């Protein structure tokens, strides 16, 4: 049964130095507030996992929280590069960042295998690409019936999985809707899971397209209104597109980045 905690308590209990941590969200419902709390608590040496690392991972990397990233596409959607991510990879600042790089389908299937308690997943991706050679966590497997060779990727089971959702009830059952991405898979695949929510309500009214995560499948729920900003929470607030563009400027050099973080995250 999920504990209802403050965001500060939840991060303190669930995220430790050296952990593998997935803060997931596919444009929608990105758990920015939780990411900022990790930064405030000065976690170090994290392995950050995400299909589409964007600004919050740029911030975590630039603040020196991460030593490795497992991902498939790292950019500022519709704007360009992640400048702090690039600085870490290209110049080792503030520290070197090891990369483990996959394709989207590979990552999605790695999460699904984790949620399914299987050691690996099979996909038709990767074949013919340099990811096959470059990424140690891609192998091949032969179909025992047809002999066909396919790509195999190992399950992902993060130490901590963090997602943002619209609502939870007072029992800790979670409801989210709109683009739901890989959120369910992350919560189920992770050793410990934290769901930040826009609000805690008395009852979760059924809604078209909504998924519900039962309280007993979640470790902790923390209320974090506006917790996905500058990404969006469907039916709560829109994406702050202007901020994504401003980030390109803010993150351009190390000083303006650190100054902004100091002022806005703490």
């Amino acid at each position, binding site marked *: 049964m999920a504990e209802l905690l403050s965001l500060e308590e939840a991060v303190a209990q669930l995220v430790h130095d050296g952990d593998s941590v997935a803060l997931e969200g*596919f*444009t*929608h419902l990105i758990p920015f507030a939780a990411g900022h709390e990790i930064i405030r608590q000065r976690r170090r040496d994290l392995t950050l996992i995400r*299909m*589409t690392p964007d600004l919050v991972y740029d911030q975590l990397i630039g603040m020196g929280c991460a030593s490795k990233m497992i*991902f*498939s*596409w*790292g*950019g500022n*959607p*519709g704007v360009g*590069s*992640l400048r702090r*991510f*690039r600085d870490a*990879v*290209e110049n080792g600042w503030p520290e070197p960042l090891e990369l483990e*790089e*996959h*394709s*989207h*389908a590979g990552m*999605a*299937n790695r*999460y*699904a295998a984790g949620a399914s308690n299987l050691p690996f997943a099979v*996909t*038709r*991706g*990767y*074949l*013919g*690409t*340099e*990811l096959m050679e*470059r990424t140690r966590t891609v192998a091949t497997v032969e179909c025992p019936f047809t002999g066909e060779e396919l790509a195999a990727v190992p399950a992902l089971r993060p130490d901590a999985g963090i997602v943002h959702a619209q609502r939870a009830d007072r029992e800790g059952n979670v409801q989210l809707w*709109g*683009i*739901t*991405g*890989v959120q*369910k*898979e992350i919560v189920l695949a992770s050793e410990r899971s934290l769901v930040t929510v826009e609000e805690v309500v008395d009852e979760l009214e059924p809604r078209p*397209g909504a998924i519900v995560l039962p309280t007993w499948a979640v470790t902790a729920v923390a209320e974090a209104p506006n917790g996905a900003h500058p990404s*969006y929470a*469907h039916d709560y607030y*829109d*994406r702050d*597109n*202007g901020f*994504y*563009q401003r980030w390109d400027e803010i993150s351009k050099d190390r000083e303006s980045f650190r100054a902004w973080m100091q002022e806005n995250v703490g």
Partner: protein
Amino acid sequence: MNDEFTADEAMTVAAARELTDRTVCFVGIGLPSTAANLARLTHAPRTVLVYESGTIGSKPATLPLSIGDGELAETADSVVSVPEIFNYWLQGGWIDVGFLGAAQIDPRGHLNSTVIGDYDHPKVRLPGAGGAPEIAALAKDTIVIMRQSPRAFVEKLDFLSSAGSPSVVITDLGLLRPDPDSGELIQTELHPGVTAEQAREGTGWDLKLAGDLTETEPPSNEELTVLRELKSALEQAA
């Protein structure tokens, strides 16, 4: 005025025209999304847009800024999980056309969106492969859209992110298609006003021209009007 259009507009319009009505497209953000929506709002109203965020049959009124905009979900026939969109829909064989862009393309149509320079010590770390490896491998047909320059059209990729054989590569200068015999990409069409010399200069390999090199039809007034409305709405939103 038909003759007043930019090279990027010619590229986007040419890409939109590759889509026939009812085509099921897997679209990335940026040029592919613009082209697919232009097709949907002009000659191919029932083009089906599938975004990798899990939205199937999205009908956005304005161009999405990101691949997971709320409007894509609200206007979709169905919203599914990300594992499902890749496994059941893309790998399952339902996608007619996958649109791709990249930082580099080679004469075989393979793409690089990973690094410029050496992988371990890159000059430029690019975002990475994303969904491109499986789109290139699993869509029935692949269309690449990217600006033609010698840094992008290269003899040898710095990294092979996705192995594909696009049926057509649409650029700001014209169109390239694989030579039926050699499989190498050759220039088959040029946009109005573009010379063969410009195409050669825009290509980092020894570009061959098709024997029957033709000129693309210039964008129509309707195409330009719709495209410009889409782009101006996008800029206001940003």
